[in-house]
């Protein structure tokens, strides 16, 4: 296993990690000698990890829980009538709005899932649905920040950056944290995968998965003015000059820089290869489907397979799932785009024996109201944002499949049983990755910061 930790000076890093010598293995991982990636045979985590890598389907905009994974038959009773109690959200909403989608029980567990995710639902016995998530405010920007970085407003490192910090990547030839979004940035852009006070190298690498040309996917991976031979020749000269320069000098950074060029040279081939799905057999390409989501999900699997730590798959630029109006049409279209790729991924991971140590996460930044959104006096046939209650699910590494955890109230407005904060979710994800969310800290501005701040409880009931 490889760790990028020594990209910082060992001393500096240890001082900031607040972990101290010996407490967590990180200390042993930092090698001043090699200067760059130090390696170690075993992962130095706080405890044995259940999952080694994460793939996160981010349905940005806010998918409706009452139309996907949280059936609310009571809404039918109140159709076109006011609910006994409604909550304040961003905009005004009116009467109860029963889901236009059919729910059905799946698998041995018999968990109900709507027709929107009928293919994904075939795997329900591998999935733990958390139906009692809640966020803090009914607005996209803070909720995206909360879900990705653990704080609605302040500048904090994203979950992926924390994982990079805690675990590094298993493949030194690929970026360890990749965020793919077809066609541009989600709202809040690169802040969603920011490293904040952690080193810049730990931020997510953004990939516009709209592109089909491999060379377009990663910045600077392809030279417009050199081929492998000319570059090799240049690097040979560079190495020679650098080695001569080292005479009489003592500075591990000099070695590190020499190594980094060799690594970069190798990365060009291996990264191009990882992103190139034309190497996949036809039946696998067909399994995922030909759309952009099929493609990005398949790329993601190739990356995970190669040791990338955390891949986030955004649905698209802006906030596609934000259906304030005509939610039936909108949700149907978007769900159709990702249901097959998600199901394909679950099958594919399983078939490869990777599901047991890959954590799959599905969700958005919040859910939607069980009441219909109003525009003046007219119903929009859409739903407003709802941070009081929504669903997220996880599957794979360390997750007890076929589980429903928590619930919202009768109508799906607010989390009721086992309310689950985003911090709880984060604590659980770190736990599954072998990290104690209270011990994974970084000192900045005099404080030992954590992803979960001062919160977070591990969701023991969904652990296998």
């Amino acid at each position: 296993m490889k760790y990028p930790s020594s990209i910082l000076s060992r001393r500096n890093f240890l001082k900031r990690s607040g972990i101290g010598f010996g407490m967590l293995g990180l200390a042993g991982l930092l090698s001043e000698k090699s200067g760059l990636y130090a390696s170690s045979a075993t992962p130095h985590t706080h405890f044995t990890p259940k999952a080694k890598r994460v793939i996160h389907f981010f349905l940005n905009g806010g998918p409706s829980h009452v139309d996907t994974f949280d059936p609310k038959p009571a809404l039918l009773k109140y159709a076109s009538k006011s609910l006994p109690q409604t909550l304040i959200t961003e905009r005004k909403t009116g009467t109860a709005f029963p889901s236009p989608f059919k729910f059905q029980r799946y698998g041995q567990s018999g968990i109900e899932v709507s027709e929107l995710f009928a293919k994904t639902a075939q795997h329900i016995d591998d999935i733990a649905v958390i139906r009692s998530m809640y966020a803090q405010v009914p607005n996209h920007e803070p909720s995206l920040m909360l879900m990705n970085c653990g704080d609605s407003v302040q500048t904090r490192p994203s979950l992926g950056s924390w994982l990079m910090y805690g675990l590094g990547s298993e493949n030194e030839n690929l970026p360890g944290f990749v965020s793919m979004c077809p066609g541009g940035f989600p709202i809040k852009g690169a802040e969603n995968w920011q490293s904040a006070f952690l080193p810049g190298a730990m931020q997510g690498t953004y990939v516009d998965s709209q592109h089909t040309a491999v060379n377009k996917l990663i910045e600077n991976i392809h030279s417009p003015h050199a081929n492998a031979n000319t570059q090799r020749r240049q690097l040979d000269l560079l190495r020679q000059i650098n080695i001569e320069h080292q005479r009489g000098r003592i500075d591990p950074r000099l070695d590190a820089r020499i190594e980094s060029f060799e690594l970069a040279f190798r990365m060009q081939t291996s990264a191009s290869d990882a992103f190139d799905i034309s190497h996949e057999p036809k039946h696998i390409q067909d399994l995922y489907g030909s759309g952009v989501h099929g493609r990005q999900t398949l790329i993601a699997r190739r990356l995970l397979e190669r040791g990338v730590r955390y891949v986030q798959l955004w649905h698209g630029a802006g906030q596609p799932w934000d259906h304030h109006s005509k939610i039936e049409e909108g949700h149907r279209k978007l769900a159709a785009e990702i249901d097959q790729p998600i199901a394909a991924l679950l099958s594919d991971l399983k078939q490869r024996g990777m599901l047991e140590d890959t954590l799959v996460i599905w969700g958005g930044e919040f859910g939607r109201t069980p009441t219909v959104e109003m525009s003046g006096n007219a119903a929009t046939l859409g739903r407003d944002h709802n941070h009081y209650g929504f669903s997220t699910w996880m599957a794979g590494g360390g997750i007890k499949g076929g589980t429903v955890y928590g619930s919202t109230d009768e109508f799906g407005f607010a989390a009721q049983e086992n309310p689950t904060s985003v911090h709880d979710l984060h604590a659980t994800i770190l736990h599954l990755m072998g990290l104690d969310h209270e011990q994974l800290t970084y000192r900045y501005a005099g404080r030992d910061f954590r992803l979960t701040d001062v919160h977070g409880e591990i969701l023991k009931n969904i652990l296998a």
Partner: protein
Amino acid sequence: MTKVLPSLKIAGVALYWSAMAHAAPAVDGTTFFETKIRPLFIENCQKCHGDKKQENGLRLDSKAGWQNGGDHGAAIKPGDPENSLMIKAVRRIDKNLQMPPKHPLKDEEIAALEEWVKMGAPDPRQGTSAAKKGIDMTEGRKHWAFQPIGHPQPPTLAINTWSHSAVDCFILEKLQRAGLQPSPAADRLTLIRRATFDLTGLSPTPAEVEAFVSDLAPDAYARLIERLLASPHYGEHWARHWLDVARYSDTKGYVYAREEKMWIHATSYRDWVVKALNDDMPYDRFVQLQVAADQIEPAGSPHLAAMGFLTLGRRFLGVTHDIIDDRIDVVTRGLLGLTTACARCHDHKYDPIPTRDYYALYGVFQSSAEKVVPCGLAKGTVYEKEWNVREQKLRETMATRREEQSARVRATVKEHLIAQLELEKYPEEAFGQLLDLNDINPVFVRRWKSYLSEDEKSTDPIFAEWHALKSKGVIKDLHEAAARYGTLFADIEKQWRALLKSQPDAKALPNTADERLRGVLYTLDSPCYVPDEHIANTEMFFTASTVVEIWKLQGEVDRWLMQNADAPPQATILVDRSKPSTPRIFTRGNPLTKGAEVPRQFLQVLSEENAQPFVNGSGRLELAQAIANPSNPLTARVMVNRVWQHHFGHGLVSTPSDFGKRAEIPSHPELLDWLAQHFTLSGWSIKEMHRLIMLSQTYQQRSGSPSDAIELTKVHQLDPENRLLWRMNPHRLSFEEARDAWLAASGELNLIMGGRPESLFAKQNTRRTLYTLVDRENLPTVLRTFDFANPDLSIPQRNETTVPQQALFSLNHPFIASRASAITQRLKGSDAASKISHLYSLLYQRTPTEHEMESALNFVQLDSAPLAQTKQPNAWQYGYGEWDEATGRIKSFTSLPHFNGSAWQGGDNWPDEKLGWVQITATGGHPGNDRQHAVVRRWIAPQDGNYTLTSSLIHEPEPGDGIRAFVSHNKRGLLRSTSLHQSTEQINLETIAMNKSDTLDFIVDIRDGLNSDQFLWSPMIKLSGGAGSGGDIADQAWFANKDFDADTITLLPPWEQLAQVLMLSNEFMFVD
């Protein structure tokens, strides 16, 4: 098991327990406490609620402790478990109140507590005071950093053959004590390179090096330092160090789409910092201007720009608390080296900074409002006319909307009173509700709330009846009263309107009592008042559509001023609000749980005992003065440490923005104080600090390893990190320094100073990297990769990482290759050897060694033959020509001349002057302006065989008549033709027999007219039934899109390759 179930179970257990209690002989309360409760408290609670810690202000090690309770009130209501907070907490029903935090109590323990409370909570424990143990200031002041700056004398050393400068004596003493000795002085070339980079961020020119190396006068080095300190580029380089601390950005970060994202005042601030440093502005003034220039300088002064330090932070989605937090952080860490923001939610865990100190500063910033003002004269008048129009429109709209909003609140007194009875419906500021005209705005509800509470405290409350009814709490009565108040104020409003009609300049209603009521609606203190401030301060007062409207108008004004070079520069300053507000502690940092009021005041640990609160306005000027006061032990120490840090790579204190208790103690405390003292005595001259440091022998040491092996082993054992400075630390160039140095070496660096930023890779951007656009929302990846300071956070010291992404940029990004090309153009010399010498001189300011010369000559001479051979086989070509109906072929194929990195076209500009819209990209393209300029993507068969073509041709735009497309074989002519408009067509062909070097042309023209003719067409060609079938399809297939880039490599010529290598070397990137 769920969390709900246990509580049901608990209830059962409780019953069981109480049954037991009744059945058994009556248990004495004290015994019960001693056996069941005291051990339980000790084991589970007192670690956090005891003698050492009092989380939430609560302690449970005495009866008085739970009686007085913590932040949330008494912990126990004797006899009433259902209404006792402690019981609620241990039952863990409320998500936000669960104790103990990690491990729930056992069911029987909970039952015991319930029983005990029911018994009346008998508790014999006395003695221990329940008083909260605040921070012990006397103890806290003992920390070295809070001690007054001492007057240390440089040590007198028994043996000193090195140097007698004060700095050196301090350093040498520590070295001697450790048994180490300093390194010899560096050579002249190293010295000038080191000093020039250190002071100006630039490399010395070959001529400068030559002059210095041959200057044998004893004061040559001192004159060099003076020359560099006088260079205007000094200010540019050191400004960037300061901008890291000031979390500088040219943009606001994420803002809603309605708002202009560029800061109007970032340029002014950046240029002000550059000038202040070049002028060697005394640092105490530098500090004060950045915090309170509005109260030091007259209107229009260029120094108003200094306040960008406070106002350039993120916008935090407009949430006031976070904007203020950011300002407290940049002021206290940036200027004082104190992590005060840690005290936002609780007393600082390590340093003597109580929460009240945080909110004392909070009050200063809460009492200050943002304002955009000119900070200099206009350079012309061209901008004026249009600016007046835009500004006028903004002002008028703002005035109208303010009045409309106030009028609405005045007309809804009743609703605002009723709202006081259901405050939970009106969420805090961070909760972004979209409000429209008929909504009751939470801001006014809260203004009414504080208005009413002030009123209640007054001797003759206007709302006396309301207060009385409120204490009784009968909702119906309150509603009726609200209605009566509504009618009453409607009448006052009517009277006032009528009076204004007859007397437009009336100032008051004639009847005193009525006038007093009018005051509720109209004064500056009125809860109906909308402040006359910049929209950045007042968003929350308006409806969603008004906020959009005003931001748009504000954006119009801002953009106009930014676009027009003759407009006056702008500053965003803070000004004191007419009525400063007294801050209240937000318990646990939560604005909804307000605690005690605190006065606006300076940090206690840096103040005299019994220091007084600020008295003038917000107190911001007093804050600035307190920071800059020479008796403040931190300000000078923190700044000299920053200067030291940038010269030596790390500070005497290794955490430059944290001088608190958790910081490592200084490596040379006396030296730090000696420097700090000299700093203030020199009139806070930063340049004087540079002189002191750079003229020392310590600074002039070599950075290499000791040549002596024993000495080498010794330093590695005793001080591997060089904290004692037995040598100079080598410096790796920052991204800015490297980019500037590349541009300087290639002769392209544009040294013009100041002005608006340009984006990093804009074609014409050859300015110093200081002037690169810093967009905190979307910082170029390369900046992040090279550890540029995160513009969202105050960064005292950059990370220094080495990652392959840096190497990838250096190898593959066109920016470096272009510099390599440019530098090659500059090379003078009749033969290769003299050109190589010139190259070494430009990049390293030295001549190459014999061996280096040999390698370089080999590199450039052994080039062309092997290189040409290794070029990839080119299966695709890109050209244009005219379709010939008669032959079914293109009339003549002409290759497109220019590749811009993603498309083949006529030239750098598209459309091209000669070839028009002709363009071929990886996935499609655009035909030329007429039928003579059809675009042709040509594929050349690499071997004999039968091939299959798969492709879809897509034309999307509605306007125009679409396109014509043809597939043509060089031998067989037309294979397929089609015309397409707003549609997609599959163009697939089976079994195309081809010999090696035969061509397939994919041709598109404009059909009958040039209008929206762009198309997508990226054919895939596959060898069918050829040798080696069954393998990876990629091996026998050609993809127009995938192969596109691979084919279009324009190899750098060998000389440029050599230049690139030398530009990337460690010698270039490190300064000894």
